[in-house]
C-alpha cells in the first residue's frame, strides 16, 4: 500500500474551515433538549481557544424543522436564511457557524440553490429588502460547529484533564459516532470525510483517547426524520429506526454514543427509555442505557468542566456510570440544582431502565 496515494485521496475529503472570527447561529430545539451544549461550545471557543465568536441576539430559527415538516414554503425559508446572512453582514463577520446540523443542511442547500439559480437569489434579496430593508453578503465560509471542534481537537486534547480511557483497566472507551444525515449525506463535499468516510466525530474520539466502533447500521438515520416524529401516527417508524441502530450496535458493547445533530442525541437518548418501557429491553450495562453525548458535552468533559454545567443531568440515560469509568468527579447532591444552588426537583424514575 502506498501511503502517499492514500493521503492524496484523503485530501479530497477535507473541507475548508475558517480559523477565526465566526458568526454563531443557535439551534431552535437544542436549547431545550441539551441546554448546556451551546453554552459549552462558546465557552470552549472563547476561553480555551481564544477565538472571536459572535452571536446576534436577534437571530432566529432557520425554519428547517418547518421546512422539512412541509409547513414552511421554500421562499419563506430562503428569506429567513437571507435575514441571518444580513445580521452577519451588519455585525461585520463572514464566517457562518450554525450549531445545528439541519441548519447547516439548510444553509448549504440555499447557497447551492443560489449558486445554480442566481435569479432565485435576486428574488430572495428583493423579498428581504421589501420585508426588512436589509442587504447581505454571502458567507465566505460555512462550517458546522462540530467542524470547529474537529479543527481544534488537538488543541483541546492538549488542554484536556481527562482522556476517554477506563481509569481501572487503562483501555480506551468504545465510542460509536452518529454524524447526522444533513451533515454530509446531502452535500458530501461539505462535510469532513464526505458521505463515505465522515470523520468529524471519529477524529475527536481518536484524538481524545477513545476507540471508534464501527457497526452495520452506523450510518442509519437516528429516527428523527421530521415527519417520522412530528406526526404521532408515524412515531412507530421513528422509534423503529433507533431500535434498529441499538440492536446493531449492542453486540459491540459501546460505552457511549457521540452525536452531531440536535435531533440525534434527543432520539437516541429518549427512545432508549421508550423502548425499555415498551419492550423491557435496555442496551447498556447492568440495566442502564448507553449514554448519548453531544460533541460539545464530550469536549467539555475531557476539558474537566463540571458535568452539571454541561447539562448532563437532563439526559434520560444516566451519564454517571460513564463519568465514574473515566474518573470524573461530580457532586450527586447538586445534580438537580440550578445555578444558584436551589433544587429544581427530582424527575420521576423510569419503571424499567436504571438511572443514577
Amino acid at each position, binding site marked *: 500500500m502506498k501511503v502517499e496515494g492514500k493521503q492524496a485521496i484523503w485530501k479530497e475529503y477535507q473541507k475548508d474551515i475558517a480559523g477565526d472570527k465566526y458568526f454563531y447561529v443557535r439551534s431552535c430545539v437544542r436549547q431545550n433538549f441539551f441546554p448546556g451544549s451551546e453554552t459549552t461550545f462558546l465557552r470552549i471557543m472563547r476561553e480555551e481557544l481564544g477565538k472571536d465568536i459572535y452571536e446576534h441576539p436577534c437571530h432566529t430559527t432557520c425554519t428547517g424543522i418547518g421546512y422539512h415538516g412541509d409547513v414552511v414554503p421554500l421562499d419563506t425559508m430562503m428569506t429567513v436564511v437571507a435575514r441571518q446572512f444580513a445580521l452577519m453582514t451588519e455585525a461585520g463577520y463572514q464566517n457562518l457557524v450554525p450549531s445545528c446540523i439541519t441548519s447547516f443542511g439548510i444553509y448549504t442547500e440555499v447557497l447551492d440553490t443560489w449558486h445554480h439559480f442566481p435569479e432565485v437569489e435576486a428574488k430572495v434579496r428583493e423579498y428581504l429588502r421589501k420585508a426588512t430593508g436589509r442587504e447581505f453578503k454571502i458567507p465566505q465560509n460555512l462550517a458546522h460547529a462540530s467542524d470547529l471542534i474537529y479543527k481544534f481537537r488537538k488543541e483541546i486534547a492538549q488542554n484536556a484533564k481527562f482522556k476517554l480511557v477506563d481509569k481501572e483497566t487503562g483501555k480506551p472507551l468504545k465510542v460509536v459516532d452518529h454524524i447526522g444525515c444533513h451533515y454530509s449525506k446531502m452535500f458530501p463535499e461539505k462535510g469532513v470525510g464526505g458521505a463515505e468516510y465522515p470523520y468529524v466525530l471519529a477524529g475527536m474520539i481518536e484524538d481524545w483517547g477513545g476507540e471508534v466502533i464501527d457497526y452495520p447500521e452506523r450510518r442509519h438515520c437516528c429516527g428523527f426524520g421530521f415527519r417520522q416524529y412530528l406526526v404521532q401516527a408515524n412515531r412507530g417508524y421513528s422509534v423503529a429506526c433507533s*431500535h*434498529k441502530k441499538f440492536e446493531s450496535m449492542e453486540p459491540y458493547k459501546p460505552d457511549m454514543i457521540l452525536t452531531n445533530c440536535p435531533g440525534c442525541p434527543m432520539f437516541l437518548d429518549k427512545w432508549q427509555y421508550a423502548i425499555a418501557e*415498551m419492550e423491557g429491553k435496555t442496551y447498556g450495562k447492568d440495566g442502564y442505557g448507553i449514554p448519548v453525548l453531544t460533541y460539545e458535552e464530550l469536549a467539555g468533559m475531557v476539558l474537566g468542566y463540571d458535568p452539571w454545567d454541561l447539562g448532563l443531568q437532563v439526559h434520560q440515560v444516566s451519564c454517571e456510570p460513564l463519568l465514574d469509568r473515566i474518573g470524573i468527579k461530580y457532586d450527586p447532591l447538586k445534580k438537580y440544582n440550578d445555578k444558584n444552588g436551589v433544587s429544581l426537583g427530582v424527575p420521576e424514575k423510569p419503571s424499567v431502565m436504571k438511572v443514577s
Partner: protein
Amino acid sequence: MKDFGFTINKDRQIDMDTADMRVAEYVKTHEPSFNICIACGTCTATCSAGIFTDMNLRKLFTLVKRGEIANTRTEIAKCMLCGKCSLACPRGVNTRNVIVKINQALIKFSL
C-alpha cells in the same frame, strides 16, 4: 408496559441470507419464464379473481421472489386458474403455470 399511542414498527428489511427461497427456486426451475417477469402488474390489472378478492399476482410473485411465503397458500387459493393473466403478460410469462408450480412447491416442502 407503557402505552405511548404507537409501537415499534416491524422491520421490513429482507435478509436474503436467511430468507426461505425454496419455493422461488422450485418455480424458476420448473417454469423458467418466471425469471423474466418485470413486475409490471398487467397480470394483476387483468385478473378476474382480483375483481372479487384482494388477489394481487404482482405482489404475490414479488413476495415469493423475496422468500416471504407466509401467506402464499391463502393467496393462491383465490386464483381460478382462468389464465387471462398469461394472455395479457407482455413478457410471455406463463403466469398460470407459475401459480400451479407455486402450489406444487408448497406441497413438496410442506409449507
